[in-house]
């Protein structure tokens, strides 16, 4: 029996341990981080197997909810936690490429980022969710500026401003909910949300929606994204797209479905998703800087997930979750590849990267990642997109889907432009080192596996209907 709390306790333990180990050897700390994330991924995998039968409740401190805090893990939470930890493990291999001091602190921050994102997914307590949101975002702020150059600091500053406004809204929302309902347990809140004063309820909902929307990169709360993704170290950009963003959107889904089950609001969520897609994809087309392009594309993808959640049918929400998984894998891959391309071309402009991906160790994973993001089969991105679209049709959102498809064509256009440049005949082909190509190949294999044989994932996602109706 795997206790979900171990997924949080172990990273914390290792994070607190690493400064002491760092006194002996800095190298060990890096391997310790890889070990810790690997352990976490394994635990999350085992947890996933267990959660299949029934949701797991892990009571902290021995106090029955809602007196104490409880971790509440359903199949969906477990799979998102698993993906987060798996991707975190893979990125931690790529972390070996980071050379800049102080490396021990970097490793600690990274581990705590992973811990925070995992906690956001696992927790069943609203205030605990806020605490993990804080852990995640404060780790993100420091990591975003870790390069200590102007770009990094500017990005981090924007992130700090917007992130802390978002957190404040979340805290205000929680305050309102607690002072009305005198409880913080999500299921407890869900059970008695109807008794809330409508005005307070709507403000609380809006605050939470906005606050988690910042992490979930919803328009117009995603203004920090391009600067942060651009300024952060390469592994961190990869991690940002895969860890906190997914945790944020999962929290958003919890707010919408588990806690408030505010079905009237859903069409507005769809519109916000569509706007996010539009702004993300269309602006991504104009970008000359690779990481910025990927960042805007990330916004577009997150918009798609938000759309899927907003459509709210079983199929669409299934698609949204599938897309979360696919995007976590695909964007991590693309950002790692981008890190290599930038390193090889010594420039972050796409036009300088002629032929840099001609080495098959980078080229093939890069192509797979890009195709997966575009939603091509047999890669992971296909099912998510297809299910979201079909879910949209079944609810009759014809015009919205048509607009979304138009934006998708733009997405294909800029990815194709990027692919064309990096595969063009260039001057020289640089061979990547193991810390770069091992994560790339691992992610590519995962993407293909999930795409070719989606049965395991879809088996987990079957539980989505329980999630929509307010269960775990």
């Amino acid at each position: 029996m795997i206790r979900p709390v171990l997924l949080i306790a172990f990273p914390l333990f290792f994070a607190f341990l690493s400064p002491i180990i760092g006194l002996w050897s800095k190298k060990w700390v890096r391997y310790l981080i890889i070990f810790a994330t690997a352990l976490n991924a394994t635990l999350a995998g085992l947890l996933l197997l267990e959660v299949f039968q029934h949701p797991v409740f892990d009571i902290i401190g021995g106090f029955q909810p809602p007196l104490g805090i409880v971790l509440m893990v359903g199949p969906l939470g477990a799979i998102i936690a698993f993906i987060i930890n798996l991707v975190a493990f893979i990125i931690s291999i790529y972390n070996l490429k980071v050379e800049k001091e102080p490396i021990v602190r970097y490793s600690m921050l990274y581990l705590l980022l992973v811990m925070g994102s995992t906690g956001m997914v696992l927790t069943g307590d609203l205030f605990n969710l806020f605490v993990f949101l804080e852990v995640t975002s404060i780790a993100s702020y420091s990591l975003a500026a870790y390069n200590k150059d102007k770009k990094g600091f500017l990005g981090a500053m924007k992130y700090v401003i917007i992130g802390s406004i978002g957190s404040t809204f979340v805290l205000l929302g929680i305050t309102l909910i607690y002072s009305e309902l005198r409880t913080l347990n999500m299921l407890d809140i869900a059970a008695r949300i109807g008794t809330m004063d409508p005005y307070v309820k709507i403000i609380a909902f809006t605050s939470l929606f906005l606050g988690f929307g910042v992490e979930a990169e919803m328009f117009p709360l995603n203004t920090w994204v391009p600067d942060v993704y651009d300024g952060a170290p390469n592994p961190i950009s990869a991690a940002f797209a895969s860890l906190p963003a997914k945790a944020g959107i999962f929290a958003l889904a919890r707010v919408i479905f588990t806690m408030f089950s505010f079905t009237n609001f859903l069409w507005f969520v769809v519109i916000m998703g569509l706007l996010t897609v539009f702004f993300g994809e269309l602006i991504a087309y104009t970008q000359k800087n690779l990481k910025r392009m990927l960042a805007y594309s990330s916004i577009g993808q997150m918009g798609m997930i938000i759309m899927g959640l907003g459509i709210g049918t079983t199929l669409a929400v299934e698609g949204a979750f599938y897309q979360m998984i696919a995007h976590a894998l695909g964007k991590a891959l693309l950002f790692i590849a981008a890190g290599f391309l930038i390193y090889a071309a010594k420039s972050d402009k796409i036009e300088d990267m002629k032929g840099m991906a001609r080495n098959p160790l980078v080229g093939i994973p890069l192509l797979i990642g890009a195709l997966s993001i575009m939603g091509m089969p047999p890669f992971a991105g296909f099912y998510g997109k297809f299910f979201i679209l079909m879910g949209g049709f079944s609810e009759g959102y014809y015009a919205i889907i048509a607009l979304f498809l138009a934006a998708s064509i733009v997405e294909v256009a800029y990815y194709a432009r990027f692919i064309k440049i990096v595969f063009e005949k260039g001057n020289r082909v640089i061979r990547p080192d193991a810390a770069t190509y091992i994560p790339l190949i691992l992610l590519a294999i995962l993407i293909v596996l999930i795409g070719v044989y989606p049965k395991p994932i879809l088996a987990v996602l079957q539980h989505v209907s329980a999630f929509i109706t307010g269960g775990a």
Partner: protein
Amino acid sequence: MDALTLFGIFILLPLVGALLSYFGRKYAPIIALIFVAITGIFLYVWYGNFGSYTVDIGVKLNLTFDITTWFFMLMINTVIFSSLLFAVSADLKNAGGFSTLMLLGFTGANGVLLSRDFLSLYLFWELMSWSVYVLILRTSGEYARRYLLFGVLSAYFIIMGIGIIYYYTGSFLYEDALSGVIPYYAWAWILVFLILGFGVKMAIIPLHVWAPYAYSSEQPFVSFLSGGLSKLGTFGIYMSMYSIAGVGILDSFGTFRGVSLLGYPFALLGAITAFVGTILAIFQDDIRKLLAYSSIGQLGYVMVGLGLGTSLALGGALFHAFNHAFFKSLLFLGAGAVIYRTGKYKISEMGGLGYRMPFTFLFVLFAIFGLAGIPLTSGFISKWMLYEAAIEKKFVIIAPLMLIASVGAFLYSYRILYGIFLGGLKEEHKKVKEAPAPMLAAMFILMLPLLIFSIVPGWILGWINDVLTNTGLKPIDYTQFTYYSSIGGANMATFWIAFMVLFFVAVAIFIMKRARVVNQYDNYFAGEAPSSVALHAAHNYYKPLKDTWAPMLKYSVDRAYEKFSKFFVDGFYEIKKIYTGNPQDYAAYLGIAFLIFLIIGWWLL
């Protein structure tokens, strides 16, 4: 045979082959060839062994192996087999990647043909689409993007069609669409979306702009793309119009001289495509572009047949698609063989190669007969069926357009024939050798059916009849050598007897009176030595014709698309200004967003 065998042989086996052949280096095409051959053998063995199955990979794939699938698979299998055979001796760079992608495309094609539910259709359609994209990317990066954009456009049109069906039925199965829950006005949208979607693959004007560039890639691949994969468009339109929707629904939109009002515009579009494609082909000097436009034109004929929708027209369309698969692949391979030996693409830079490459010449000659609809090949019969189908219904625009296009086909065929194989041999090509044996074998495989089905069209008409009856349409009236229509039909036996007689007469004349061979430079030039370019027969070929058409040629669909996209991209830059980079603005966005969310939330409560 059960579901897994079917899935295993037609989908998994090529996929495994794709994986294996990546590591095959130089021998990759041979490995791929083996895998294609195995599926081909099973295709042969399983003829008549039809049925439908469900494969569960998490989503349920409904696969049906029936005569329609079999008929199209036959084309695609043969075409990819000969293309890969050709590729064995063509020195491709990264042959492993090439074979892998070819097999992926093949898998996608098989999947599209087998699938009887929209999810697997879309899945395999996209698989096929992007593997072709990467294949194009290998040689011409700039134009691969254009292909991908149109490929995705086609996929999204299909998605729209599927989605509307899904809204009404809540199911992805083809047969559920038939259950009558979809109102007929929705069918209009569905069919328009589906036909446009599949039409992109057939390069119907104005969705054709990807084709000339995509067809300029490596020849073995292009022969598969043009000969094989474009037939998936035909298959898709055929299925969506006559199997998924059915004649009843098509006719419920009203009819015009017995042809559905929904089908007629597409038939007209097909005729225009045939016409424009042919006209543009005439003016090309690049052999690849010429064949590309010719391909567009030929598929226009098929579209006419699909749009008209009478049994004769559909039979003609299927037959022509079948012929096109063979003769266009053969032409691309022939061109490939010539390019392989000479390294030239321009017709005006070649000439006289018929003496050096006699077998290639012979095979290409047959392909051209098929293309131009000359009675020696089965291409004649299919075209004739299509003319008759149009004339039968007295369509005064479609029929003449097709006839003019046919004349145009003669013109550009002649350009290929004369420009490349006849005329004077260039000095630099004196040492050109005949194409290697695998290439010749590949071309021979493709030539054979053209010849055989021209003598006994009954065989193929039998299959086509099975396809038509399987879809629930009336069969064509035919015998082994003849088919009949309300205004005549054609009897190939008579043709062949007449041809044989004439042929022997011609041979006798040729033997009796030998012509004098003249050197290219053995001429009178009034004291001025002209350049060898100006002397070439294909130099400024059809210039007078081109001058006549010049005012029309300046309108280009290409440029229209460019203007369209530029307009939008400018808009993107305007939108970008929202991300000002100033954190104060961003904070204000948050506040404003909160208020807006709040107002909407309050309103929705």
